[in-house]
């Protein structure tokens, strides 16, 4: 009897947490940034030009070929880590601007998947890891029937729990 009661009490604690999360999710204010479609298209259309210029610049430097290649790789990394990251960030903001309320409210996680993507793109380096985290969030974490508290950084999770769930 004690064992069943202890297990059910444990589930009851989870239930209480779920209810709190549900309330937060149902009543949260959705941000609507002002990013427009044309801005995103413009940003992405410049990217190939930037990459081309970076490669061209590095190959015109008066240094040995091996160094030219190294500079080229460094410049490309720089473009991907900063410029492409910025483009992706604007894409998410564009989604937040245009997506229907109904679609955005389907997310069962805290923060919402788009907010999670923004935090990842701002705080997680390198870009590949940030993208991987976003993919896991969309296809694995944001599924099922439970409300979840899932920030990309443990510190943020802890802070949220302390502020809203205790």
């Amino acid at each position, binding site marked *: 009897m004690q064992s*069943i009661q202890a*297990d*059910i009490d444990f*589930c009851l604690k989870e239930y209480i947490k779920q209810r709190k999360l549900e309330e937060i999710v*149902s*009543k949260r204010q959705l941000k609507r940034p002002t990013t427009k479609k044309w801005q995103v298209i413009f940003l992405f259309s410049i990217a190939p030009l930037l990459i081309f210029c970076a490669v061209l610049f590095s190959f015109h430097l008066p240094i040995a070929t091996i160094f030219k290649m190294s500079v080229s790789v460094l410049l490309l990394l720089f473009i991907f880590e900063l410029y492409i990251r910025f483009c992706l960030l604007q894409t998410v903001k564009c989604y937040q601007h245009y997506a229907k309320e109904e679609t955005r409210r*389907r997310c069962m996680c805290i923060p919402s998947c788009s907010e999670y993507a923004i935090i990842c793109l701002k705080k997680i380096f390198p870009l590949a890891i940030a993208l991987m985290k976003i993919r896991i969030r*969309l296809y694995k974490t*944001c599924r*099922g029937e439970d409300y979840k508290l899932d920030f990309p950084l443990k510190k943020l999770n802890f802070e949220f729990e302390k502020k809203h769930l205790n």
Partner: protein
Amino acid sequence: MEDNKYLTLARQARADGNSEDAKTYYNKVREDDPENGEAKFFYAYFALYEGKNGEIPQRFGNVCQAVFSAVKMVKSSTAPVAEQYATISEIVNAFLPMTWTLNRYMNNKNRETKVGDSYVKVFDQSSITSSCKKGMFAIRDLGNELESIYGGDADAMAIAVLAWKEYVSLAQKWYAYPPKGEAEIYAEKIKKIEPSYEMPKKAGCISFSDKKN
């Protein structure tokens, strides 16, 4: 609903989380006063913890049945209306989490022990499903019952809204079980009483929940 010493002891044991004592005292209250709704419900509630895991679906069914008669007994008791509401509120607040909690408990048990590649099934899927449905519909009907027996009284409706909110929440999670569009109907009912209510949405950013309904 006259106060007797066993009822006080039972309430004390319940507040302390001592389910064995609570069940014993509530049983004594039932023997003294078979029309005591609180004792009827909480006896069934604490009996759920007894016995083996295999008996849980059956015992949960008993709780689902007991909750309706308990509410009716409280309503027909001689206790003041405020006390009736307090008792009903306690019954409802104890009953509402049970469906979700039991579902989680059953699923957790089924994932507890692994032999080879497969888990040892403590509960079969059909009993989990039937418990979910039974609990969900009992919650919905409990709200409706409160609405009908108290004729739309504000305090009773506040308790009914709690039940409907739980129903809508479960209906959105287990959207295959309730009749199509019923969650929306109850959400509208809740909104009439509580305009700030936001109906929880179906699961997941990238999900197939819409296609199933």
